[in-house]
């Protein structure tokens, strides 16, 4: 390695300079290896390996971004759970209304019974509205994007929707956005025959049953019950829709985790230190430092001076 041996034999001072340099270099290399050992990383700063640095930084930032997507997924899942809870409660309500309807549709039910049931349902309509106005983290679930305004209000005996039909998109993977919310109309409006025309709303179906019970008309009750049933089925469909969204979130999460693993291994390939290799290098360097020190101290002692008579 050493170009100094050209004039080496002549000058003692050269031994010293050379030894100083060599020892310095060895120590520097030892420090470098020690740093790699301590940090577990081969690339600790851009100048260690500029190419690997930029690539591994990009991967690190990507990993950070995946953390963000994980957070978004958590938020999305919580929203979906809240949505599903509200919808399930609505389904329960409509189921019980349907059961009441079944009991009242028989000829044995008296007018008074029907009136009482109508009153009960009247009161429960508020529970239906409560679910339609369900909130999650202070935001109305079924208000479109007008999440700070109560979406459903009973005014003059009819229910009005104050929300909008906008969806909230969540970015759950790089470039992948998914609508997380059902708008009020999604939940509220029932399209019975799939012609994209709203046939009735679920609150109308509910109100119809009340009206039919009050009218004490068995046929009307049966018609109303069909709507209540349709409303319930519509709500079950919405639950299925939420389930589908939830499934997409899970798939995204699995992909995210896989991608993270790949990312981690790529990053590790780029910047992680190979401990076995470092250990060997450390050993070799140490040995060579010791040897240099020994040889230097020997060489520096050899001089004619040692052999001249005093």
């Amino acid at each position: 390695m050493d170009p100094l041996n050209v004039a080496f034999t002549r000058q003692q001072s050269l031994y010293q300079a050379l030894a100083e340099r060599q020892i310095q270099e060895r120590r520097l290399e030892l420090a470098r290896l020690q740093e790699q050992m301590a940090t577990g990383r081969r690339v600790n700063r851009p100048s260690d390996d500029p190419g690997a640095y930029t690539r591994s930084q990009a991967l690190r930032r990507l990993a950070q971004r995946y953390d963000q997507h994980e957070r978004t997924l958590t938020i999305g899942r919580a929203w979906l759970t809240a949505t599903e809870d509200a919808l399930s409660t609505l389904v329960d309500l409509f189921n019980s209304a349907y059961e009441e309807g079944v009991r009242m549709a028989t000829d044995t039910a008296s007018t008074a019974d029907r009136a009482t049931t109508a009153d009960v349902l009247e009161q429960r309509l508020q529970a239906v509205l409560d679910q339609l106005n369900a909130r999650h983290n202070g935001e109305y679930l079924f208000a479109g994007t007008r999440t700070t305004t109560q979406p459903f209000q009973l005014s003059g005996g009819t229910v009005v929707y104050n929300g909008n039909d906008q969806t909230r998109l969540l970015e759950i993977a790089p470039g992948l956005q998914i609508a997380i919310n059902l708008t009020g109309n999604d939940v509220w409006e029932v399209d019975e025959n799939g012609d994209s025309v709203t046939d009735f709303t679920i609150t109308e179906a509910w109100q119809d049953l009340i009206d039919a019970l009050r009218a004490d008309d068995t046929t009307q009750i049966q018609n109303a019950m069909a709507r209540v049933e349709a409303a319930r089925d519509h709500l079950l469909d919405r639950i299925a829709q939420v389930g589908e969204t939830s499934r997409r979130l899970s798939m995204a999460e699995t992909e995210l985790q896989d991608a993270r693993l790949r990312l981690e291994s790529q990053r590790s390939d780029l910047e992680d230190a190979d401990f076995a290799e470092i250990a060997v290098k450390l050993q070799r360097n140490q040995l060579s430092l010791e040897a240099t020190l020994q040889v230097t101290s020997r060489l520096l002692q050899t001089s004619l001076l040692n052999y001249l008579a005093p």
Partner: protein
Amino acid sequence: MSLNQLFSLTRRSFQTIQAAMNTVGQNVANANTEGYARRRVTLQAVNIRDTGLYTALPPRSATGMGVSVATYERLRDHLLDVAAWDARASLGASDEETRIYQVLESLLAADDDTGLAALLNDFWNRWSDLADNPTDTGVREALRGQAQTLIDTFHRLARDLDTLTTQTTETLRDAVDQANSLLEELASLNATIQAARQKGNPDLVAEDRRDQLVHELAELLPVQVHALEDGSYQLTVNGMALVQGDRVMPLTLDLSGGTPSLTFGNTGIAFRAPEGQDGRIGAQLRMLTQTIPDVRQRLDTLAATLVNEVNSRHASGYGLDGLTGRAFFDPAGTTASTIALSADVLADSRAIAASGDPTAPGDNSIALQIAGLRDALLFNGGTETAETYAINLAGSIGAAAKDATGRLERSRATIDHLDALQQGVMGVSLDEELTNMIRFQQAYAATARVLDTARSMMDTLLNL
């Protein structure tokens, strides 16, 4: 030829051997003196003719008058000197470069989680958080806080670059002062050396000193040395003569403008030298006029783009208060040192516009758009995102630092090699000197024996 002559011959021998011994002593004493060139005495036989005792040689006379010192030589190889001085300029340059690049590197790639790229990433992530929770005021506070952290980092980097500039300017000023005083001293040594040579008695100490000064100067400037007949050195840089005989043209450093300029004397001609071989002064100048401003420029571009791109989207959005047309960043601050949050956002995080619909605070389209800026190829002619731009900035400084370190190591190796060759010529070897010492000692003893013999011969004569 008289017997007496033997006495004067031995006297002369003693003197000569003593002179040679003195040289050995001088060499041994200076074995570790930096810049000391080994001296050698050459001896010559003295003929009677040379002593001036006779005007003409007696016939068939082959005897002489002993020995005398022919020359005192200073052992030095000018070719090697020149090569070493050249190499010193690149050593100085790469040493300075390495130092500054390492500082820049540590600024720009300080730490994984506090670096610019990481903070940008966090900034976009906070916008994603806002998109996930557009009406949550806590998320808004977090976003504002993160934006402030990013801004603080821009400011810190700008300040650090200022400091680096100030420090480098100081070192440049010192280096130019040092170079100028070296030039002065070299010129005056030139005068001393010329005068001594004219008198036929070279001033070896002055010559050693001069070579040593050139050695120091060469690290500062890519100086070219021309040894002239009269023993003086002419020093040029860029073909401009900085020292000629005892005359000096100093370097003029002008710091009055925004960037420093270095010219020769009052000629107005700017100092220029090939990159990497321009000595410490050249490298400092280059760092101050190119590298550091370039890094600053790139930071400013990043800040300005960020401000403009975020603001233009933000202005079309609506805050929680339903108001629109407001800036997120203060539009007036478009550099790394002036970037700031807008007064509106500073006053109330509800002013942050996440929604694109005045009637729907729960809309997150603007927040999504701004969060999506992380993927926008806004830099380097539409090839880089803000994050990759920041990473590449650190990466390119790292690459430059690595290159500079490589150059430094190579020029160190070159210098080591040349130094070794030079030392081979001019350095003192104790073993060699000691061997000479023994040789001269023997000669001294032998001469004494001759004198002793001459005395006994004289005694014999006197006792006849």
